[in-house]
């Protein structure tokens, strides 16, 4: 049974600067995996390499056994690789419902229809509402995204990604910038995600990481330092050394 | 063979003069676009103003040529400061459409004012005697004025490049073009920087318009007619860069002159097609920042 998402000897260099060094990484189906590391470790770069936003200098990216190294970002989305962004990239002047519906429509092919009014495609609207409901924000469906508190916006971000029915979901700092009171809601939302979905989160919030992940990879200066269960990582001396200077890490 | 060589020299000469004028006018647009991210389509208005000031001062007020040039620079730069503080600065964060509409409105107003004051005909340039005349090269006559134009422009361009490379102002401009937010956070007074740079760019445009008055005719529809060319210089050269537009302007000047000379039926066709081809190959321009 192949990994849901895998990289082999993945490298990225910008001239003399190596931002990703021979990364061997595997995400199993149904995984609850976290990627941690100090600032500047190259975590977001790694995610960009996974999603196709960045092309690697060498190495391979495999999705469910298929080599997608040469496949562009839209192609990877179509093959079931979803992601959220560290900074909200939402459609700010549209309603929450529309934000999610747009993605659902793209996936189902409804987005190409140009004759019947969008509002008549109730299957799209219903699916979008169901997604919002699963994240607990269905009552905000008609509000403009820009009017929502930041924490709820982060949830919309996740809802959009879910609308694409990904097999693999990459969450780039889902709780970043969210006040502690609201991050509980995000954790709840993450807990409700489908069991079969392979999920990788990148996070600085160690509380969230240790509560969510069953497997953790530590990235330092573009290379994998170590990986293992939360208990193993917590006990690892090298990890503590790396984080020694970052008490709020 | 001799004839072809002298034709080539002639095309190169006139093309270079044209290119220099285009650059001096357009460099301000490139820098302010890169610096402020503001789509200022009305840039040609400053060039036109410089041209009108020069020709009016020369013919109606009989001001000596060098003084008229200085006045063109200073007056237009001063007025541009007013424009920038009162009008442009309100729209710095605005969407591109708004900036485009706003500056088109400014063009409409300036064209109307120019027509009201100066009428619709082209303004003749009365050169001082010491700049008239011709000189011989390869069996052809070249106007001395164009030679002066090339030399003087080269001097101004050198001064500008020196200014941007070596002075504090230049360093701040380069920093802010590269990363505006960063520049602000290290204490650069971006408001003042914008105003000064805008003034310099507009003053240069005025000088370019004034000096180039006999290559690019001064008439009320000036900002409309030449807008495409200024924009081509900036896009092909690369926004925010200094060298890029220089190469682009020279290429355009020489190519346009060559086409008009050898293939008059084709006209400006080639320039537009070449622009499209270059931008297909390098969408950010030849020396653009973000590829």
């Amino acid at each position, binding site marked *: 049974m192949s990994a849901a998402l895998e990289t082999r000897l993945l490298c990225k260099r910008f001239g003399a600067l190596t931002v990703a060094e021979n990364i061997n990484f595997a995400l199993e189906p149904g995984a609850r995996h976290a990627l941690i590391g100090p600032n500047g470790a190259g975590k977001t770069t790694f995610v960009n390499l996974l999603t196709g936003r960045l092309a690697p200098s060498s190495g391979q990216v495999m999705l469910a056994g298929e080599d997608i190294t040469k496949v562009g970002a*839209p192609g990877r989305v179509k093959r079931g690789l979803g992601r959220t962004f560290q900074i909200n990239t939402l459609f700010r002047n549209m309603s929450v*419902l529309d934000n999610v519906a747009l993605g659902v429509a793209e996936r189902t092919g409804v987005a190409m229809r140009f004759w019947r009014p969008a509002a008549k495609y109730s299957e799209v609207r219903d699916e979008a509402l169901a997604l919002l409901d699963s994240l607990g924000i269905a009552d905000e469906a008609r509000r403009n995204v820009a009017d929502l508190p930041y924490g709820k916006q982060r949830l919309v971000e996740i809802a959009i990604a879910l609308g694409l029915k990904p097999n693999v979901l990459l969450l780039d700092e889902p709780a970043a910038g969210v006040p502690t009171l609201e991050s509980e809601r995000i954790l709840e939302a993450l807990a409700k995600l489908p069991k079969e979905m392979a999920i990788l989160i990148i996070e600085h919030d160690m509380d969230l990481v240790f509560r969510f992940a069953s497997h953790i990879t530590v990235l330092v200066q573009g290379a994998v330092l170590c990986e293992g269960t939360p208990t193993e990582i917590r006990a690892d001396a090298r990890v503590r050394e790396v984080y020694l200077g970052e008490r709020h890490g | 063979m001799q004839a072809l060589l002298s034709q080539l020299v002639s095309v190169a000469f006139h093309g270079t003069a044209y290119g220099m004028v285009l650059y001096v006018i357009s460099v301000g647009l490139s820098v302010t676009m890169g610096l402020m991210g503001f789509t200022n389509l009305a840039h040609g208005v400053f060039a036109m103003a410089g041209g009108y000031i020069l020709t009016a001062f020369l013919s109606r007020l009989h001001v000596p040529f060098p003084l008229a040039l200085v006045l063109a620079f200073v007056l237009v730069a001063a007025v541009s400061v007013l424009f920038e503080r009162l009008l442009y600065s309100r729209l710095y964060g605005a969407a591109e459409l708004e900036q485009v509409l706003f500056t088109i409105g400014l*063009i409409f107003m300036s064209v109307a004012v120019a027509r009201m004051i100066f009428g619709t005909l082209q303004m003749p340039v009365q050169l001082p005697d010491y700049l008239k005349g011709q000189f011989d090269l390869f069996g052809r006559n070249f106007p001395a004025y164009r030679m002066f134009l090339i030399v003087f422009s080269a001097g101004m361009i050198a001064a500008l490049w020196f200014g941007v490379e070596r002075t504090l102002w230049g360093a701040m401009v380069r920093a802010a073009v590269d990363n505006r937010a960063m520049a602000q956070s290290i204490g650069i007074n971006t408001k003042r920087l914008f105003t000064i740079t805008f003034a310099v760019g507009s003053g240069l445009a005025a000088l370019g318009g004034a000096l180039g008055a006999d290559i690019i005719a001064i008439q009320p529809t000036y900002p409309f007619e030449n807008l495409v060319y200024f924009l081509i210089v900036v896009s092909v050269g690369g926004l925010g860069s200094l060298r890029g537009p220089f190469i682009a302007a020279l290429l355009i000047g020489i190519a346009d002159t060559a086409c008009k000379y050898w293939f008059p039926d084709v006209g400006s066709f080639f320039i537009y097609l070449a622009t499209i081809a270059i931008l297909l190959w390098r969408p950010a321009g030849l020396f653009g920042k973000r590829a």
Partner: protein
Amino acid sequence: MRHPVGYNANHRLRLTEYLPWVLAIATFFFLGDYLSLGARVLTYILFALSLDLIVGYAGIVTLGHAAFFGTGAYVAGVLSVKVGLTDPILQVLAGAAAAGVLGVITGAVVLRTRALTQLMLTLAVAALCFEVANKANSLTGGADGLSGVNVAPILGVFKFDMFGKTAYLWCLGLLFIGWFIVRRLVYSPFGASLTGIHQNSVRMQTIGAPVYTRLLMVYAFSAVIAGAAGVLLMQTSQFVGLNVLGFEPSGELLVMLTLGGVGRLYGAFVGPIVYLIAQDYLAKQFPEYWYFGIGLLLVLVVMFARGGVLGIIDAALARLRRKP
């Protein structure tokens, strides 16, 4: 509030949407002397609709939309003069198709770029078309324009009469068809995706939308409509001049649309009505002041009334609703 589009939008015809058609028909019966101005207004409304589709909804800023308008006019005109194609319906189809082809070719290039470069390319395309029309004397009449255009009776029955009655109704009919299609498009899922592209094209790519292809489609479609409008102009004035090409008519159209209100569908109606009627009165009397006034109005609209006339009306209505 802009007409919200999308999956929650109320797409049913509002009462106010009947107003333009009522006014148009009333004009036909009660303002018989002004039908040629009326036909011109209707033509420009169709043209403005095509521009609103790409500027207001898809977010592509263009200063060269007249390239498609003029292409439609010239192709249909040249076919009429040189080949004897006089059937008005075929003329519209031919002109619109030609404009559409130009739209696909130029769009393929223009849409690969963004911001200033894109703007410049739209200008360059318009300038190119102008040059072609100018130099191809034998075909287009060059600077003198193309005269001797013939338009046969519509469906063999309705002749283009001196009073402009046929022309007016013909323009009204085509405008209705154009408006109907554009309105459907705007409210459709495709239209919703256009709005998404306008707001955040990067995000649209990450949800798997082929942004470039979508924009190319709407660009080409907009060109087709603009081309049809151009043919209408040719048919109602039986003449095509260079003034249908280049920056001036493109800029003028953008002004009309801005005055009416961009991205509101009906700004394309209000703008040309207000602009062309005012121009008919004022421009002839005081051409310079007219030009200055338009420029000033544009500056003021951008600074204080970004939504144009419809924006002002919306704001006023919103304030009235808050009172009780």
